C-alpha cells in the first residue's frame, strides 16, 4: 500500500478538493438552496440562488482537476507537525476564550461570596464598571499571549507572564479608555 507521505502533494490536494466539491454539489446544494439555477418569476426568467454556489464549486473542481493532472512530484510529507501545532494553538485559544467569557462573572461570584459585592448582583450590572469589565479580557488575553509565546520558544517564565499581562492591558486600554462606544470581549454578550 502506498504511504500517504509519498503521494504527490498536488494530486493529494486535487483529489481532496474534487471529492469535497462533488459531495457538496450532489449532497449539500440540492438540499439547502430553495431555488434552481434559473427561475421563472412573473413570467420572466431570473437567475436563481443555486447558480452562484454551483459556479463556485465548478471553479474549485476545475482547480482540483488541474492539480490532479499536473506533473508535480513533491510528496505530501509529514503532517503530524502542523496538525499538532494547530491543535495546540486551538486548545490555548479555546482556554483563553473560556477565561475571557467567564473570568468576569466568576470574579463577581467570588466577590459576592467574599462580601465585596452585594449578593445577587451578578455580572451584568457591573460589566461596564472598573475593574470588572477588564477582568475577563485581561485574564483570557494574558493567558493567550503567555501560553502561545511560551509554546513557541519554551519561555515559561514569570517575566513573560508579566509582559503578556502588560500587552493585554495595553490592548484593552487602547480600545476601552478613549472610546465610550467600544465594548471589550465578552461585555457585549453577557
Amino acid at each position, binding site marked *: 500500500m502506498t504511504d500517504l507521505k509519498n503521494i504527490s502533494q498536488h494530486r493529494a490536494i486535487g483529489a481532496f478538493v474534487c471529492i469535497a466539491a462533488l459531495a457538496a454539489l450532489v449532497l449539500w446544494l440540492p438540499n439547502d438552496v430553495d431555488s434552481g439555477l434559473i427561475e421563472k418569476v412573473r413570467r420572466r426568467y431570473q*437567475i436563481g440562488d443555486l447558480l452562484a454556489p454551483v459556479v463556485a464549486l465548478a471553479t474549485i473542481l476545475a482547480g482540483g482537476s488541474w492539480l490532479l493532472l499536473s506533473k508535480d512530484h513533491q510528496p505530501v510529507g509529514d503532517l503530524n507537525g502542523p496538525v499538532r501545532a494547530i491543535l495546540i494553538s486551538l486548545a490555548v485559544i479555546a482556554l483563553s476564550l473560556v477565561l475571557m467569557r467567564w473570568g468576569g462573572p466568576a470574579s463577581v461570584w467570588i466577590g459576592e461570596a467574599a462580601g465585596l459585592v452585594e449578593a445577587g448582583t451578578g455580572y451584568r450590572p457591573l460589566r461596564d464598571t472598573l475593574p470588572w469589565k477588564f477582568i475577563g479580557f485581561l485574564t483570557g488575553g494574558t493567558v493567550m499571549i503567555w501560553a502561545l509565546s511560551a509554546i513557541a520558544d519554551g519561555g515559561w517564565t514569570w517575566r513573560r507572564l508579566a509582559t503578556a499581562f502588560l500587552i493585554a492591558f495595553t490592548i484593552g486600554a487602547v*480600545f476601552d479608555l478613549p472610546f465610550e462606544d467600544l465594548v471589550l*470581549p465578552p461585555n457585549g454578550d453577557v
Partner: protein
Amino acid sequence: MGVLDHIFLGFDAVLYGSGVVPVLGIGIPLPLLMVFLGLVTGIVVGSIPGLAGPMAMAVALPILISIFGYETSAFLPVLGFLIGIMKGATAGGAVPAILFNTPGTPDALLTTLDGYPMTRKGKAFKALRVAHFSSVSGDSVSDIVLFIGAPFLAIMVESYLDLPEKAALILLSLCFIAAIVGKPVGKGLIAVGLGLFFATIGTGEDFYPRLTGNIVELSGGFPIACAILGTLVIGEVFTALYEMRGEIINHGRLVRHKIAGDNSLPLAEKRQLLGYILPSAAIGTTIGALPGIGSTLAATLGYSTAKRRHDARHPDDQAQRFGSGVPQGVAATEAANSAVSGANLIPVLSLGIPGNAAAVFLILAMDSINGLNPSPSVFKFPSSGANPEMVMAFGLFTLMAVANILNWAGGLQVMRLMGNMIHIPKQILLPSVLLLTIAGVYVQDTNLLSVIWLVLFGIMGFVMRLCTIPILPFVIAFILTGPLERTARQAFSATGGDPWFLFSSPICVMLMAGSLFVLVYFARKPTS
C-alpha cells in the same frame, strides 16, 4: 461644473469639510492630521517584522468608525488615515527586509535580494535611503497618473461597459488574480472558488438563506471582517507560530551588521537611479490600474526587467550584478510595488474591484461610510451643480498627494528610527497580534460568535498556506461575489433572460476570451 471646479471643491473638502484640530496652537484640518498619523502608523507597522499594512488597516477601521461615525464628514478623516497606513507600510516594509533579511510581505522578499547584501557590506542606511527615495518616487508617479487618468478612465468604463460587460470584467479580474498569484494556476482557481463559495453562504434572494443548514447564526452570511482577517491575519499568525520553533533553532537571534563607509545618497546617484525607478514605476502603475492584480506581480516584473537590463550592462562584473547588493535592485523593486498603490485606486473607485489586500480595506471603509460609493458614476458630470462623489474622490486624491509630500519630508527619518527600535521578539508579537485582531473584530460585532468565525477562518488560512494555496484570490473573490452575482442577475434580466449574456457584445467576448487566455498563458509558464 467642470473638472477644475471639482478639484478645487475637493481641496476645499479636505481643508474645511471635517473641522480643524488645534495642534500646538495651530489649527490643522482634521483629514491632514489623520493622514500624518496614518503615515507614521504605517511606517511603524511596516517596519515590524510579522506585521503589515492590511493588518493595521483592519484593526484601525472599527476604531475610526467608532470615533468619526458613518456621516459624510467622517469620510476624508477615516480614508485619510487608511491611505496614510497603506503608503507608510509600503515604504516601511523595506526596513526589516533590508536590515534583518526578514520580509514582511512577498513584495519585500525581492527587496531583500539586494537590500540585505548591502546591509552586510555596511551600507544599511544607504539601502534605506535608496528604498525610501524609490518608494516615494514610484508612489508620486502613480498618484499623478491617478489624478489625471482616473476621471477619463472611469468615464470610458461607463460609456463602454454595460451590465454584461461589467460581469465579464469581474470574471476577468478573478481569472487574473487566480492565474498570477496561483502557483500553479489550479491552486489560484481553488482559492477563487473557495472565496466565491463562502461568500454565497447565508446570502441570496430567496426567503430561505442558502447553504445555512438551518443554522440561524449563518442567516446573515459570514461577517466580511471575520473572513478576511481570519484568513489573512490569523492564518498568518498560526503559520508563523508553527514555523517559528524551527526558525529559532536554525537561525538563533536576529543578526545586526555594523555601518561602514559612506552611506549617503548624493544627487548624482539619485539621478542615475531614476533610470531604474521610472521604468519600474511605469510597470507598477500599469499593473495597479488593471483590476484585480496586486503589487507582488509589479515588484517581480519591475525587479526582473531591471535585472535583465542591468546584468546585460555588466556581464563580467559579479560585484555589479543584481543580487550582490546593488542599490539599483532595491530601487527597481521598491518603485514598482509602491507605484501600485495610487493607480490601484482607479479600479477601486470606478468599479469597486480591489487589486490588493490594502485596497480591500479602502473598499470596506467606503461601503461603511457615506460619501462615495465606488462605481463609474463617481466621475460623472452632472447637468447642473457639483457631483458630491467626485468632490470626495478629488479630496481623496489630495490626501494621497499630502501623504506623499509628508513621506518625502520625514518618512526616511521614521524608517531609520524604526530600524533602531524593532527588537520585539516575534514569539511575543504574533500572539499579541492575535489578541489585537480578536478585540478589533469583537468591537465591530460585539458577539463572541464572530471571534469563533475568525478563528475558524484562521484555521482555513493556515491549511491554505500549508498547501501553498494563495490567500489573496480567496479574499478578493469573497469581496467580489456580491457585486458579481448582483451584476449577473441584472444583466440576465436586462438581456431578456439570454443565457449567453456574457457573450452578448464584442467587448464581452473580448473580456471572456481574455479570461481564458490568462489562465492558459500562465498555466503554460513553468512555475519557479
